[in-house]
């Protein structure tokens, strides 16, 4: 297993620091060698910056990858957007000599050079491939009695030609990692549908993006889930902050707790909810916390 550096992105450190904390705690507990990546920037966000200007997207993504190359580490992402952006940029820069050359002209101005020596990983894909559900299950000290509505998020598995993670219509690898914690990954209609946030739709057309979120939340509520679990802080934000925005704009109340996989795994590894920042979400469902207290502590 190669050494890793943790790429934080924007939303984790600057909106949901509990995910950063939970990830650090889980990596330590699983004895995964992962260093910080000082001075990293926005990945930059694939749906917007990539579609505005490709050379800019490659230069910024290239710099983030170079920071990890300098440490001799693969990049570990905890966000589908960062994963999509960095893995696609890394792939293009490795494969396309002309793009690598033009990107290195920009990087040369800050004394850096992209070499193409490291890979980009996503924590869910990494845990599945390097540990596997069985090994995770062995590490669990507090099995969770929760019904989880899993949201894969689009860019973890798509575009599939670049990802190679199996079926995009009915994948199972993430479900297996959920069930390794003792929780049940419940089935629900439109499970693989988008949260509505990506592609700059949330930033420019909030109400439209919330219509898509509302649809998914209704499906999840009807399926009787205790919580939503994701592996993408942008989806996390859309579901968590989105519920408050939906309350305000559409007068609808869902009150469904939202957890990143690091936070769910952290609970199963024995960390209390407050250490994982689960109480720092916008949606803080009292019943859910009581359930966690009753069954975890």
């Amino acid at each position, binding site marked *: 297993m190669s050494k890793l550096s943790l790429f934080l992105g924007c939303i984790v450190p600057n909106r949901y620091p509990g995910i950063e904390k939970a990830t650090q705690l889980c990596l330590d507990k699983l004895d995964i060698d992962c260093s910080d990546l000082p001075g990293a920037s926005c990945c930059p966000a694939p749906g917007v*910056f990539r579609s505005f200007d490709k050379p800019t997207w490659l230069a*910024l993504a290239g710099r983030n990858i170079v920071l990890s190359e300098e440490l001799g580490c693969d990049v570990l992402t905890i966000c589908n957007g960062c994963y999509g952006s960095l893995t696609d940029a890394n792939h293009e820069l490795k494969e396309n000599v002309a793009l690598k050359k033009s990107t290195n002209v920009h990087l040369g*101005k800050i004394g850096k050079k992209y070499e193409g020596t490291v890979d980009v990983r996503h924590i869910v894909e990494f845990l599945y491939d390097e540990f596997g559900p069985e090994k995770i299950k062995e590490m669990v000290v507090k099995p969770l009695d929760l019904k989880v509505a899993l949201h894969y998020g689009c860019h973890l598995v798509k575009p599939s030609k670049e990802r190679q993670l199996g079926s995009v219509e009915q994948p199972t690898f993430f479900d297996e990692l959920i069930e390794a914690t003792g929780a049940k990954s419940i089935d629900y209609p439109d499970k693989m549908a988008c949260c509505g946030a990506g592609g700059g739709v949330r930033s420019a057309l909030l109400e439209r993006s919330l219509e898509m979120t509302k649809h998914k939340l209704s499906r999840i509520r009807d399926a009787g889930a205790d919580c939503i679990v994701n592996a993408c802080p942008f989806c996390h934000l859309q579901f968590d902050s989105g519920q408050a925005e939906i309350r305000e704009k559409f007068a609808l109340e869902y009150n469904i707790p939202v957890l990143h996989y690091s936070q769910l795994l952290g609970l199963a590894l024995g960390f209390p909810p407050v250490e994982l920042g689960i109480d720092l979400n916008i949606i803080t469902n009292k019943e859910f916390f009581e359930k966690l207290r009753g069954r975890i502590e």
Partner: protein
Amino acid sequence: MSKSDVLNTLQNAGLDVLTCMQCGTCSSSCPSGRYTSLNTRRIVRGTCVGRDILHDEDLWMCTTCYTCQERCPREIKIADTILAIRTIAVHEGIMLPAHRKVSQLVLKYGHAVPINDDVKEKREKLKMDPIPGTVHKYPEALADVQTLLRSCEFDKLVA
């Protein structure tokens, strides 16, 4: 840019939409299309026939979920095509105000979503450094990011 130039630019980027048979798998799979005016089939058709696609506001309603691209029986890279048309539009000066604003945030802070006081407090509650170890903590790293953005003339593009 003329209408046929759009098609040429896409083709040069390896994005061939002319094999589209208008089956509608893309638009019927589109989660955004359920709630917005986005009709991916119509965008592909418009591109094929040289309609003024750059000013089509539906371009900005795609969440880039890639379902259309995965399901297309002709294997047309539909989502990538929409993103490539956006690139042409942005370089023609067509951009939504919110996207200009988020670009300015990256220029200023190196983050599309920068830190705020509320989150600094949350970080302290979690016994973490209130300032994350990103460009936020290292001014020289932010200066490097800004140098790159200027080198790519991104500052002029989104001004």
